């Protein structure tokens, strides 16, 4: 028995070394076998994190899913005299937002935190992996990564953690070119991404899953507390999706009432003249024309710092 265990442990050590070395080789050479995620690579989220690491104090901070980074145009708010930043990432749920804000809120010191809330990100069926992979592949190694790892114990996340750590330790991210155009996405500035996709892709949808993940609700409450302790005003915003997708939602009323019970909340669906095929490029995402209309409305809803003090906790 003892020889077996001894050799088994030696073999495990060898495996660990081989595993780490080969991930290192893949990270350096950018070899991406047909695995189901990419190791760290240039991405629009990488550009957002690069800007975030250089960002200073901000007035307005936006957080949320792809609705957020494709919706809140930081140029609009900057032109109104506010310094804004959009920390939205793909499929970001409140649990991810909480992990990010734990790290960044103190350095950003926003006056108003705008949380984009989207029913699907509160669903039990929400895939947490996409957001985790997207964040970890694009940020430098940070202590909050352990929260992401614990959130979804997936081997792919572990692989990515190893790859990110190696990349940072070796300083390989310095040489990564981050092009502002990625396929049909154009990174504008301070987290805002515009799509150059033409036309509208119709998608089938069976409505938002109705089972709410209360861990997400608790995370949102924690975000509100985290901000309030620091004297930061918070508002929750649900951004418009296509009318056909919105009509398919099964639990919108209860979602509205849940959000209202947590913080000042506005649902912008149906509040402005948007046409599915003109202002969206798919069921979920605004195109630049749609984003322009929505940002004008959002600016009005947000109002002035005097209003924040009055209306938003």
């Amino acid at each position, binding site marked *: *028995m003892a*020889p*077996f265990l001894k050799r*088994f442990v030696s*073999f495990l050590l*060898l*495996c660990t070394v*081989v*595993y780490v070395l*080969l991930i290192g080789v893949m990270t350096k050479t950018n070899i991406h*076998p*047909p*695995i*189901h995620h990419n190791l760290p690579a240039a991405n629009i989220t990488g550009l957002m994190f690069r800007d975030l690491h250089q960002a200073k104090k901000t007035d307005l901070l936006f957080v949320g899913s792809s609705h957020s980074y494709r919706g809140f145009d930081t140029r609009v708010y900057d032109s109104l005299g506010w310094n804004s930043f959009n920390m939205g990432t793909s499929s970001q749920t409140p649990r991810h937002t909480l992990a990010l804000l734990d790290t960044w809120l103190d350095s950003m010191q926003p006056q108003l935190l705008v949380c984009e809330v989207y029913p699907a990100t509160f669903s039990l069926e929400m895939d947490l992996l996409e957001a985790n992979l997207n964040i970890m592949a694009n940020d430098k190694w940070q202590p909050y990564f352990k929260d992401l790892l614990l959130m979804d*114990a*997936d*081997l*792919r996340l*572990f*692989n990515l953690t190893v790859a990110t750590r190696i990349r940072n330790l070796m300083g390989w991210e310095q040489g990564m070119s981050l092009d502002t155009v990625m396929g049909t996405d154009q990174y504008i500035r301070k987290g805002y991404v515009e799509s150059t996709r033409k036309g509208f892709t119709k998608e089938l949808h069976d409505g938002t899953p109705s089972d709410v993940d209360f861990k997400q609700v608790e995370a949102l409450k924690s975000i509100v507390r985290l901000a309030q302790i620091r004297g930061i005003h918070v508002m929750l915003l649900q951004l418009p999706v296509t009318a056909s997708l919105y009509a398919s939602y099964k639990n919108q009323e209860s979602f509205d009432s849940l959000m209202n019970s947590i913080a000042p909340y506005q649902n912008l669906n149906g509040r402005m003249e948007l046409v599915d095929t003109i202002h969206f490029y798919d069921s979920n995402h605004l195109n630049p024309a749609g984003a322009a209309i929505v940002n004008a409305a959002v600016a009005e809803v947000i109002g002035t710092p005097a209003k924040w003090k009055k209306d938003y906790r």
Partner: protein
Amino acid sequence: MLFNSTAFLFFLPAVFLLYWFVCNRSVFSQNILILVASYFFYGWWSWKFMGLLLLSTVMDYVYGFGVASANQRKARFFLWLSIINNLGILALFKYYDFFASSLQHGLQQLGIQADMPLLNLALPIGISFYTFHGMSYVFDIYRKKQVPVSGFTDYAVFVSFFPLLVAGPIERAHHLLPQVQRGRQFSYSQAVSGCRLMLWGLFKKVVIADNLGGIADIAFEQYNAFNGISLLIGVVAFAFQIYGDFSGYSDMALGIARLFGFELLSNFRFPYFSRNLGEFWRRWHISLSGWFRDYLYIPLGGSRRGSLITWRNTLVVFLVSGLWHGASWNFIVWGGLHAAGFLMLMVLPGKASDYNDVVAAKSRFPMFGELTGMLFTFSFVAFAWVFFRAPDLAVAVDYLENMLRSLLLNPEANLHQIYGKSALLYILPLVMADWYFRHDERELKVPGKSRWVRWLFYALLIFLIGMFKYADSSRFIYFQF
């Protein structure tokens, strides 16, 4: 709990260490540990069905004593009681809704309106496997191949031993029970060979089967959108997916059992190198084929009562085997197709029982005749898999129709294409490894004496498993049966 899940990564070493370090003083304590671990393993999926497993175990344990009676009438009574109970459990959980809805549909076709109540029960995982274990025990006692075991723990371990509990191999009482009852010593070579088997099984499941499953799923779910070549690729991908998935599971089961000092029945012997359908069924899901041969085909008269009875028995075995896989008409058609193929083989010159040796036994490559036989057999088996994989008969027929129409009549149709390169990437290593090791039981022994070379190869396999892992714990196809 799945063999490819994170939970199992902690479960297995914990049980292994307790087994050899804490419970190594007596067989009884080792068996108790295995029993507790097996119920924990099963309960991880659903604790509610642990009661059903226990009930099935207790029933067959008790019936075993009755069947052993010298009084023939009493023995026969308990034998039938066991059959009725086991098949009753299966009928209730697995088949009732299928037969009720089929009857309702049939009556509606005749213009009779009938509203059959459906139970909509969840199918307990592994039910087809552990009920067959129980029946094998009672049958073996009835045929005087086995005496009833006195210790309930021993019998319960035989039924619920966790490596084979949910997807086999379907063990025989006379093979496994003696191993449960006798003392087990740790064997270095057995443990190492178990680790090799587990690693190869995991590789086949995670790297090959799960990734081919992605290709097959796209083809079968959107078969209207793809051209004939793509649908053909989908069928081949599924053929290797199910082989990698199920043989991978079986290898892991055998490997895990070896870690605890047990030898389980082999379930696969390179089935896609079979030169005819008869050989295929001696190499595919061997433990089930053997079960049906011993407990259904032979009691029905086997091949000893003339051609007609032999054909009838063959047909019955294949149809029942189809139904065993699932309560659905497409499984019955799948069984029927294999029956038809087998019967044709029986009337053709040369017997279905030919080819007991390994293909290209004394050469590196197969002879032309062997190669043709292998390709023909694989094509037939893959064709039948369409009925196995499709959600219902209509989809299977549509799938085949779309594939053949596109291939034969309109190959340039403006349809999407699945590229075969990615499927080949997964299929080729499996075929090459199987061909290389076809003379032996699969164990993936790397040739050469240098331990470092062997270890580096195994470490590379582990790296590939880590890189190609599709999801945290994708289920095994045979869990649904």
